[in-house]
């Protein structure tokens, strides 16, 4: 019986438990419901929780531990020469056994007969059933696969039995515990509160997961490539080695990637900050409500467009346009129609990313500017300053910390942006200052290193996690610094 069926069984028992509990509470209450401490629903809930919660915990625990227990038991029965082989090889052998075991379940009894007789035909037989094997199975594998199937079956039956028993036991116990004085509501609410607390701790678990998983893989990487070579290396040349050849180590210098990331981010901010800031100022200070109601959502559409669409726009429209126009310009100036802007370049990626960032800058700054109190504005205007003077001398200084914070948050978005740079910035990791040439970024390399078919233990793959943790730390610092600035320099007007 599969896990989901057991789960459904337990849940069905839970529903029955709820109904029984409510029924019993009603019966105990007699004619007057106020004889009970809580409303009957809570007694139902109380019984249902007792019936499902222990059983579910048992199920979760069992399905996590059972496979590894079974695996170690099967592995214990491997022949000695296999046990002597390195761990990785044993893992491969075990993988094959699981495939065989999966295939054997699909076989008809007649096929199983021939299988038992002749180990050599296993591969053709199984591949006919849609279970391809990586190599010819060794003779010891068939009994091992059989054993695996047998153990898994037995474990499943035991699990089913235990879960159903636990559910029924909980049900009976809770039903017997029901009395008019039982504080069922308080008990149920305590469980609900626990569930709420559990849900909110998922946020912490996610962070721990991010940090732990990336640190773990990154330390793995740093054991192969020294940390100083990664953080201070100026050459990025990971040299995709074929799986297993091992020998050729690449060079994993972070600096060119970081330079590209910061350069492209800088170009993007160069476009986004003035445009976004001026839009925000116009929208907050000048625009009539009608213009505002029309222009603000329009700009915010830009924030809702997926970045892959921006990437495609850069790849097929902006890049070729810049390339062609640069060829025209150089043709007019020098007579030689050679383009000096590459289709994939820092300027292409930066420009398109700038467009993407406009709404972030403008809506964040808009909120901050409108939060500056009316009195400051009126005072300045009343003293004879024009509107633009008010903006420049009164409002912007008052809003400055907030705006700086907003810009830092925008910058962290620029650093972490992936799809635009993957499609528009190029893959060449170079250190140079010409914005018309391609450069690459940290995010591009994470994607490049992980979309290939590499074994998971090579430094070529693991470097992605080192890059990831760098990126995480970088954006985290930017965001925390932004918060700090906002908190420290915020003007209190109340």
């Amino acid at each position, binding site marked *: 019986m599969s896990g989901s069926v057991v789960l459904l069984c337990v849940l069905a028992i839970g529903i029955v438990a709820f109904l029984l509990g409510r029924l019993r509470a009603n019966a105990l209450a007699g004619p007057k419901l106020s004889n009970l401490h809580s409303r009957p629903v809570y007694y139902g809930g109380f019984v249902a929780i007792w019936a499902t919660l222990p059983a579910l915990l048992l199920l979760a625990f069992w399905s996590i531990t059972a496979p590894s227990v079974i695996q170690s038991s099967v592995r214990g029965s491997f022949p000695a020469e296999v046990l002597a082989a390195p761990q990785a090889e044993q893992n491969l052998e075990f993988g094959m056994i699981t495939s065989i075991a999966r295939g054997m379940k699909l076989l008809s009894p007649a096929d199983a007969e021939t299988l038992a007789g002749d180990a050599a035909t296993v591969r053709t037989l199984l591949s006919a059933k849609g279970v391809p094997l990586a190599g010819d199975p060794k003779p010891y594998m068939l009994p091992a696969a059989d054993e695996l199937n047998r153990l898994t079956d037995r474990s499943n039956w035991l699990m089913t039995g235990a879960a159903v028993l636990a559910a029924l036991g909980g049900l009976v116990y809770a039903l017997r515990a029901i009395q008019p004085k039982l504080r069922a509501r308080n008990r149920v609410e305590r469980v609900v509160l626990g569930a709420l607390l559990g849900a909110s701790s998922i946020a*912490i678990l996610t962070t721990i997961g991010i940090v732990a998983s*990336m640190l773990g893989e990154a330390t793995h990487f740093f054991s192969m490539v020294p940390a100083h070579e990664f953080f201070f290396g100026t050459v990025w040349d990971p040299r995709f080695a074929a799986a297993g050849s091992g020998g050729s180590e690449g060079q994993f210098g972070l600096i060119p990637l970081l330079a590209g990331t910061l350069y492209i981010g800088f170009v993007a901010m160069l476009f986004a900050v003035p445009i976004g800031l001026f839009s925000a100022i*116009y929208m907050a200070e000048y625009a009539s409500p009608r213009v505002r109601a029309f222009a603000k959502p329009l700009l915010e559409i*830009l924030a809702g*467009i*997926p970045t892959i669409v921006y990437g495609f726009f850069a790849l*097929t429209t902006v890049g070729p346009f810049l390339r062609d126009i640069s060829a025209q310009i150089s043709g007019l100036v020098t007579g030689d129609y050679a383009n000096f802007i590459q289709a994939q370049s820092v300027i292409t990626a930066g420009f398109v990313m700038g467009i993407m960032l406009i709404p972030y800058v403008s809506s964040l700054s808009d909120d901050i500017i409108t939060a500056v109190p009316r009195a400051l504005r009126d005072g300045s205007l009343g003293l004879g300053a024009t509107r633009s003077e008010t903006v420049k001398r009164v409002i912007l200084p008052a809003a400055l910390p907030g705006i700086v914070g907003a810009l830092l948050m925008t910058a*962290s978005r620029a650093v972490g942006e992936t799809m635009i740079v993957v499609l528009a910035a190029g893959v060449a990791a170079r250190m140079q200052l010409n914005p018309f040439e391609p450069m690459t970024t940290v995010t591009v390399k994470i994607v490049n290193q992980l979309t290939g078919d590499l074994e998971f233990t090579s430094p070529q793959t693991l470097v992605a996690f080192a890059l990831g943790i760098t990126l995480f730390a970088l954006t985290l610092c930017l965001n925390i610094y932004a918060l700090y600035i906002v908190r420290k320099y915020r003007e209190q007007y109340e």
Partner: protein
Amino acid sequence: MTDITSADPMVLTAAPPRREIGIKRRYAAERRFRLYGILAISFGVIFLLLLLWSVVSKGYTAFLQTEITVPVTFTEKVIDPQNTRATNPAVLMAANYPVLARDALAKELGVDPADRAALKEVNSMISASVRVQLRDIVVNDPSVIGKTVPVKVLAEGNVDAAYKGHIDLSVPESDRKISDRQLGWIQQLAAKGELASRFNTGLFVNGASSRPEAAGVGVALIGSFFMMLIVLALALPIGVAASIYLEEFAPKNRLTDLIEVNINNLAAVPSIVYGLLGLAVFINFAGLPRSASLVGGLVLTLMTLPTIIIATRAALKAVPPSIRAAALGLGASKMQTIFHHVLPLAMPGILTGTIIGLAHALGETAPLLLIGMVAFVADFPATPLQPSTALPVQIYMWANEAERAFVERTSGAIIILLLFLLAMNIGAVILRRRFERRW
């Protein structure tokens, strides 16, 4: 402004001339400043329109597909020369079907069957997907062998492009993907009504294909649908539960402070980092299958949670304390107050935030690339555990294809994606307008 203090008091007795306070200059600066603002906004709006125009103008033709209707004769000599199909059905699977379509079209065009160069050009007008199409016809109904049946076959990508006018005919013939002779044939067939554009249902139902004319987003749509279901089923309850705890129950202490800072930071973590998390935890550690929409859904759930939590907390905060006080005063417990009164009132705000979070998740690409959803999946996934791909990832894969026809497909897929996002956002706006209360 300094002009005021330096004004000569003697002047006041005489007819006062206008004081020079640079009003012209200042008004000019004012007008300039205003102009900058207008320019900035119009720049943003123009680029929005340019972006949409570039996608739509490239992509709207993807919703049409050129098809050729040819009377295909299912000759037994080609399909099953030895007449062994009764004993060996595999013959029908491996037969040379494209030849049938080629010969039928050649006959239709009046091409001499001995002219091999012409036959080759005829062949290149029909999509390679014809092999599967004709094979399915024959395998489903072997009695068709020997008969002549009109079949609608897909035109090859270049013919499709030429018929839609995407190929620049001023280019010399040798540099074009399509020859003058083929153009003549296209006109000939179009005049007879045998070559025509129809609505491209294949774009919505087909899976991945290396032939642009046969490629579609069907598998990607299903994958995205599974992922959205998972995100909705996990992120909404967990997000709401977490927000209720943080907003209503959490004591002010270090732990809750930590959770709060955490959630704000998670909202700002680059999405690709979630992809790394998914790869390390769900695939490597938990052993879930690569390319499965289950993993994608889990990753997107973690990514969407902070958005939903932040929106839900704002919605809960907006419910006035008097509601809580009234419920508590009538004897409800705190839990009852929240679940029976506060939560229903906050629901429109919560749902709006959820829809916006879902829309974000639908358009997200980067984390999905890392968990192996960049896969060539031609079969429809039946469960979230089977390999699948997602709409934005399909767009990414097509954007990397070299062929011109894929640009059209990519833009078409982008239009589909944007329409979904538009529908979701309009839904959110309607929800907010209709149900949100101001207290």
